């Protein structure tokens, strides 16, 4: 037992220095040198202010913008620190709804959201538009969910739908090599392009 103490303590310390400090700090240095944008969080800067990260979804509520997916993230209740309040797209506290498939709360939420959405566009609602994402920060929607919102955005922007469809198509990313992953539309980048288009 005692003869094992020295290697146990020495190796714990040695691994802490090697794997806990040298490795992460070395990777930080390399990453900042090789991929500074990505290592810093893929931030998007407009007119000197950071408007977000290309990888992190944010809340859009105006009719003039395409909307992302429902987000179940929360924040500490300012009135009572032991409780939480809903705070969609809180990028400092990621998480999903954790509602199970037979949850009344889940069905109530989806029913209300689907009813609202069907007022602006008849027909089946794309599943991703009324289901909350795993992280609560999903930056993407499916191409079908973008198409679903084209009519609303076009009306709010006084634009033709075809003009918006072209913009959505330009911001739709297919599967990698046509095979891996799923087709996606990045909502923040699409909305930035939308602002650019109509600022001209």
């Amino acid at each position, binding site marked *: *037992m005692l003869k*094992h103490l020295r*290697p*146990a303590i020495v*190796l*714990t310390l*040695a691994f*802490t220095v090697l*794997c*806990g400090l040298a*490795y*992460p700090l070395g*990777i*930080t240095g390399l*990453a900042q040198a090789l*991929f500074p944008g*990505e290592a*810093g*969080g*893929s*931030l998007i800067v407009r007119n000197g202010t950071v*408007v*977000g*990260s*290309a*990888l992190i979804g*944010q809340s859009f509520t105006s009719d003039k913008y395409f909307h992302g997916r429902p987000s179940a993230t929360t924040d500490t209740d300012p009135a009572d620190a032991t409780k939480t309040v809903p705070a969609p797209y809180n*990028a*400092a506290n*990621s*998480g*999903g*709804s*954790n*509602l*199970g*498939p*037979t*949850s009344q709360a*889940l*069905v109530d939420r*989806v029913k209300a959201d689907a009813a609202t959405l069907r007022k602006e566009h008849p027909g*089946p*609602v794309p*599943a*991703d538009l009324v*289901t*909350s*994402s*795993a*992280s609560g*920060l*999903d930056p993407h929607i*499916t191409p079908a969910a973008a198409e679903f919102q084209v009519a609303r955005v076009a009306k709010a922007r006084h634009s033709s739908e075809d003009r918006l469809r072209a913009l959505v198509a330009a911001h739709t990313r297919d*599967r*990698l090599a046509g*095979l*891996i*992953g*799923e087709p996606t539309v990045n909502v923040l980048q699409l909305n930035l392009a939308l602002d650019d288009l109509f600022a001209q």
Partner: protein
Amino acid sequence: MTLDGWFQIALFSAIVVLLTRPVGGFMTRLFSGERTFLSPVLRPLEIGFYRLAGVDEKTEQHWLTYTVAMLVFNLACFASLYALLRLQGLLPFNPQGMTALTPDLALNTAISFTTNTNWQNYGGESTLSYFTQMAGLTVHNFASAATGIALAVALVRGFARRSSKTVGNFWVDLVRCTLYVLLPVSILGALFFVWQGVPQTLGTYTEAYTLEGAKHVIAQWPVASQLAIKMLGTNGGGFFNANSAHPFENPTALSNLVQMVLIFLLGAGLTNFFGRMVGDERQGWAIFTTMGLLFLAGAAVLYWAEAAGNPTLTALGLDPAGGNMEGKEVRFGIVNSALFATVTTDASCGAVNTMHDSLTPLGGLVPMVNMLLGEIIFGGVGAGLYGMLLFVIVAMFVAGLMVGRTPEYVGKKLEAKEVKMTMLALLCLPLVNLGFTAIAAAIPAGVAGVANAGPHGFSEIFYAYTSMSANNGSAFAGLSGNTLWYNLTGAVTMFIGRFAMIVPMMAVAGSLAAKKRLPPSLGTFPTTGPLFVALLIGTILIVGGLTYFPALSVGPVVEHLLMQTGALY
């Protein structure tokens, strides 16, 4: 289900198959003490470690000495991590000013990372400092993974050696595994993940202002360096609360594919290592095939269940082609979420890219079954192989009973001592996971943590103890685990799940090592063919089924039947 979905499952499987031999070959050279292509760089560092630690790399250890060394090392790991968590507020690299963890949460977290479980009762971005994540959790991601592999290497030596008193040197196996396997792959993996968009920075959280003018604080950390070892070491503890579902912790479909491959990489490679060590690679491929078939069965069921979706939601006017997207990310979709959930619970990784709590009932059944079978489908690094070899002993014992002959496996006679120790190792898991589930479901302190009502609530509790006893670490995360009850019982569960299995397993290793190796005779049951694979799968499913069918019926099975009738809670 789509053709492209099946193609993605096939592509992943093909990559794992192709990597198995090279990894196994490298490990065989490494753990036999031969030079590898990394030796010119790493050998001086390795020797330095031995000098500092006072270890003579030529001295081998008896199985009991090996086990005690491992336990003392894990005790040192636990103590240092516990101290770090309790002193967090006083330590550097803490730009967000995180304070110390409570004693029960620190205990749970320290046990969790020492046992390779990485169950998390805290939310990463809201609780821990950069220093804790790096010098605390990252270190134990390496150390616990290396511990698991060292133990598997010792058991394999037990099968491979003839009349030997020793099974290797724990310190040497530990250092070699960390330096030559875990660290180099992690460095490459971390850089790859940064390229894909995973942050690696020590700056403070970024304050952004959205297009609609709202303030938006973005948590970003040195994520990539921990992410790589979290996958490779089947640890699974996420930097962020949402784990590998967080776009910073898994930004693209490609990063997702590489994460899944890293989870299986060492577990698959170890099967080939086993085959090479016992002198017949086909022995390794028979184990690999058993694991592979169980993996494919789980992936197929989970993919089918999630693609079929939730009939209650479809009835509200949702496009049925979308499947069950609650708790999933668009960039992964149904297939990559289902595949990841299978892989992470086959191996005792426990990282998640989808919220398991929101899986359909049968979709959620698959991860539970994967863990309940004992994390032997590639499994935790090292733990998967030694767990599977214990099942092989049971299977060969059953086969021996059927023909009335002393069972043999790779030339070693399996006698009363090995079979008894194996049963002891295998029975400790149901004792803790079923035992604590039963108690928690019956007392207010246990039920208080449940987020969903009805059978799903029971599933949340059962999943928690299953995950902790199997050292997996994934969760039906609606359960509020950061309570005194769950912190303490969880710590006990994780401890027993890890060490109560290891000690008898090491006794088997020592006993086997001391035996002669018999040449195969006409009466030897061949352990490289389909009959052996079928027997092994049958044994695993019968043992698992008999133990857990009642508990699974009360949770996911009954919930599935209720969901079909539209019942809600």
